């Protein structure tokens, strides 16, 4: 045994002593060294993930408050609280306690509204964040797994939202649960039993609220938290992606250090998100449970809708025709042991569109990798216009989703625009089929046009907004050549050409490879190539005669920080 001879650092101030104690026990110095000056790129579109994270924190805080007062019991009670129009009405303890939170606990209504608004914003922010990742190609290697974690988070967000929506046990969400029960029962073979297990027997039973409650306050949030940890860990491993621009390469990350700038901005943004949610909670009623009354299987209200993120499934259910003339999608199948029923009118719309959306979403990094044969690491993002086919597919998906989403409010569209409910449904059915194709074609054309415009600007400069008269009397607009910093952003993308079908090891071209080549052609056949050196040099030789040279520097930076 020998004692160490190195003299250990001794702190002198009280703060220093505490910090030193922590450092020697938990090893803070290496952490500060690792993260203190870590670089994050700055762009407004990178902040949606933070909105999602911060609304989740707000949900945890407001949700904890609500659990202290909410009683998820389906026991029977007579309401004797402060809301007069329900006084003396029979209801469940869960609904009564939700009313008490709204009318008898100071700040309870505010916290309920903050919680619900934050939930709507949480899923919205996740969705927009994922769209940003999709359209910029940020899901490509090495970030495929983090994309999958993100998709999982979205599904967990939907689960958290739906379980919470049902808890107050009022008429609106009760009918929502009844719809879920109907959809579950449509599942062949096991559906009826799943329904019994879910509700503890027949619908509605007296178990479901308690079961949804434990999912809502424990299981789902714990899973979300776990996924968030994995998500952020991988962000640290990969470092953030960045948009193309001067100084940005595949090997670096350009931005601001965590300490102090990024920490201040991101930290401050938490308070901003909280402030906006508080404004919503203070000024706008959300989920007016007192209007709906206790759940009872007999009443229902006009305008029965789920929260927005479940809307697309509800809309798909509305769009599906249950019968075509005398043909019914309820299919009674005669089996040797008796007749079984397949409720295709429910099963198809409930499972197929959502199934396709999520399957394509989860699988897209691999689908695109297979089609493009691009297995390289990408840290520089695509500008959406430079990936016209992907952008087109994304917009087609958005339109498909939005048609279903709009269908969920077909009755409100009918009343508010004074049109026939039936006509709204017919139109949306048509859009459901044709909308994505139209959207794809238009988007792809717009992308190609924007690329051509970029080429135009690179070759001939941007329009300066100044009309000049030549000595000959001809009028024309002055063009200003871009500086290199701006130019680089417009030219630094790859000219991706279709890769024809490749023979395998045995020298034969497999059918799947032919299929891949077809998709590949569809992906890349129509493209606008970036400006080449030769073209640029050629264009510059014209300059001296008819284009005044660009104004260098000065205003050349305003767009570069993005």
């Amino acid at each position, binding site marked *: 045994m020998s004692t160490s001879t190195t003299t250990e650092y001794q702190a002198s101030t009280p703060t220093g002593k505490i910090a030193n104690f922590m450092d020697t026990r938990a090893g803070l110095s290496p952490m500060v060294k690792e993260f203190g000056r*870590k*670089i994050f790129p700055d762009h407004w579109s990178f902040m949606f993930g933070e909105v999602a994270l911060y609304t989740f924190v707000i949900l945890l805080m407001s949700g904890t408050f609500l659990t202290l007062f909410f009683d998820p019991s389906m026991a029977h009670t007579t309401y004797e*609280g*402060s809301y007069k129009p329900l006084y003396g009405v029979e209801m469940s303890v869960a609904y009564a306690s939700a009313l008490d939170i709204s009318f008898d606990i*100071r*700040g309870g*209504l*505010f916290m309920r*509204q903050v919680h619900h608004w934050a939930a709507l914003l949480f899923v919205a922010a996740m969705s927009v964040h994922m769209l940003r990742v999709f359209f910029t190609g940020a899901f490509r290697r090495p970030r495929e797994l983090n994309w999958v974690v993100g998709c999982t988070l979205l599904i967990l967000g939907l689960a958290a939202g739906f379980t919470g929506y049902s808890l107050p046990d009022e008429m609106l969400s009760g*009918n929502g649960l*009844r719809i879920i029960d109907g959809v579950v*029962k*449509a599942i062949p073979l096991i559906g*009826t*039993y799943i329904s*019994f297990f879910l509700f503890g*027997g*027949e619908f*509605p039973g007296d*178990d479901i609220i308690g079961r949804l409650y434990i999912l809502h306050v424990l299981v789902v949030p714990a899973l979300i938290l776990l996924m968030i940890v994995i998500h952020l860990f991988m962000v640290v*491993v990969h*470092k953030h992606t960045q948009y193309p621009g*001067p*100084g940005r*390469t*595949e*090997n*670096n990350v350009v*931005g601001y*250090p965590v300490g102090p*700038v990024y920490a*201040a*901005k991101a930290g*401050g943004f938490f*308070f*901003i998100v909280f*402030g906006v949610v508080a404004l*919503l909670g*203070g*000024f706008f009623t959300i989920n007016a449970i007192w209007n709906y009354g206790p*759940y*009872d*299987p*007999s009443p229902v209200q*006009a305008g*029965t809708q789920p929260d927005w993120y479940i809307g697309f499934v509800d809309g798909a*259910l509305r769009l599906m025709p249950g*019968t075509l003339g005398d043909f*019914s999608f*309820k299919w009674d199948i005669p089996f040797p042991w008796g007749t079984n*029923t397949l409720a295709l*009118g*429910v099963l198809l*719309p409930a499972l197929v569109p959502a199934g396709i959306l999520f399957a394509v979403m989860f699988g897209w990094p691999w689908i695109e990798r297979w089609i493009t044969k*691009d297995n*390289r*690491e990408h840290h*520089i993002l695509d500008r959406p216009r430079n990936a016209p086919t992907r952008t087109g597919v994304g917009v087609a998906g958005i339109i498909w989703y939005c048609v279903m989403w709009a269908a969920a409010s077909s009755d409100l569209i009918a009343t508010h625009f004074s049109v026939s409910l039936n006509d709204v449904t017919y139109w949306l059915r048509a859009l459901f089929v044709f909308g994505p194709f139209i959207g794809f074609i238009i988007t792809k054309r717009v992308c190609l046009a924007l690329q051509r415009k970029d080429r135009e600007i690179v070759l001939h400069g941007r329009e300066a907004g100044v009309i000049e008269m030549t000595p000959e009397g001809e009028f024309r607009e002055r063009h200003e050549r871009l500086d290199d*910093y701006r130019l680089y952003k417009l030219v630094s993308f*790859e000219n991706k050409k279709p890769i024809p079908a490749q023979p395998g090891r045995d020298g034969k071209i497999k059918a799947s490879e032919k299929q891949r080549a077809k998709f590949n052609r569809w992906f890349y056949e129509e493209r606008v190539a970036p400006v080449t050196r030769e073209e640029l040099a050629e264009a510059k030789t014209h300059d001296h005669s008819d284009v005044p040279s660009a104004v260098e520097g000065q205003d050349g930076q305003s767009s570069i920080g993005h």
Partner: protein
Amino acid sequence: MSEQSHGGPDHTGAVEHAGVEESGKYAIDNPGLPPHRPRLADEDPKAAKRAERQAAFLFGLSIVGTLLFFVGYFVVGQIGPDTTFATIRLQNMLLGLGTAFAMLGIGVGIVHWAKTLMPDHETTELRHEVRTEADRQVAVGMIEDIIDETQVKRRPLLRNTLIGAGVLAVLPAIAIFRDLDDTDNRSEFAAENFGPERLRHTMWATDVRLVRDPTGTPIKASDVTIGSAFHVIPEGLNELDPHEMLNQKAKAVVLLMRLNPEDMQVSPEREDWNVDGIVAYSKVCTHVGCPVALYEQHTHHLLCPCHQSTFDLTQECKVIFGPAGHALPQLPIRVNEEGFLVARSDFHEPVGPAYWERG
């Protein structure tokens, strides 16, 4: 590890990166980071002072917001039976406004501080490979050693019994959820109370009176005039235990209407199911189970407000629009000696959405 590299290519490694910048790849070479453009506050101490005061003002605003919250909470005060909605709205608004000011003051203040006073030099950090080849070789070596040391490859008996035990050990974790539906444990007729059979039966039976929902008062045939609609439950439902009541009500709710008999198409086997044009249909939508309660008295359409399935009352509630796949079941009714409407029997088919065992 962070350095001002201005984008020099510095990459070695096995992974191919997209767009690695060999010179000449694009029309112009990467010009590197643009020169830093100083802000007002960088050069003018007055501007810096102004920015400082602005941020401090925002923090002050946050303090005012917190006070506003307390005004809402304590001054507006406790709410209860005698509080008007206007007071609750005022309190809610003050809590929201106070919190918003408190939070936005801090948030906007900090961000303003960061934007105007903290350095805004863009900095470059190099990326590292997710995995290097050297690391991979070390890791693979380790794992091989570890597996070797367990001797699992040489002793398949150990491996196979462990796999068998592990697979079986999971099964109790599935089996233990069996009693999520424990209704058969409560009832004396287990066979009737577990399984899909119970979806076939409702409380309706021969001579059960039709009563109004929710009052439970019986209905005389003469009460039901043309054009009216009654929301109906079976007599005795309200006397059930509250939970059994909801379960039974979920299946038994009925809508009672009267049509001119000449408007109705009645199939031969249903000829005695109505009373002079008074008909009773299940209110549970055959799509996914919402109450189909919207009755249009002139078009004789029944509309479900959830997914817009439309049923034609004159055609025995056949589906004429929307996602439902089959007609609403009809409850056969007649009049008893006292003139009250009663059921002839239960429904002749299961009510509500289709399910696998429906047949």
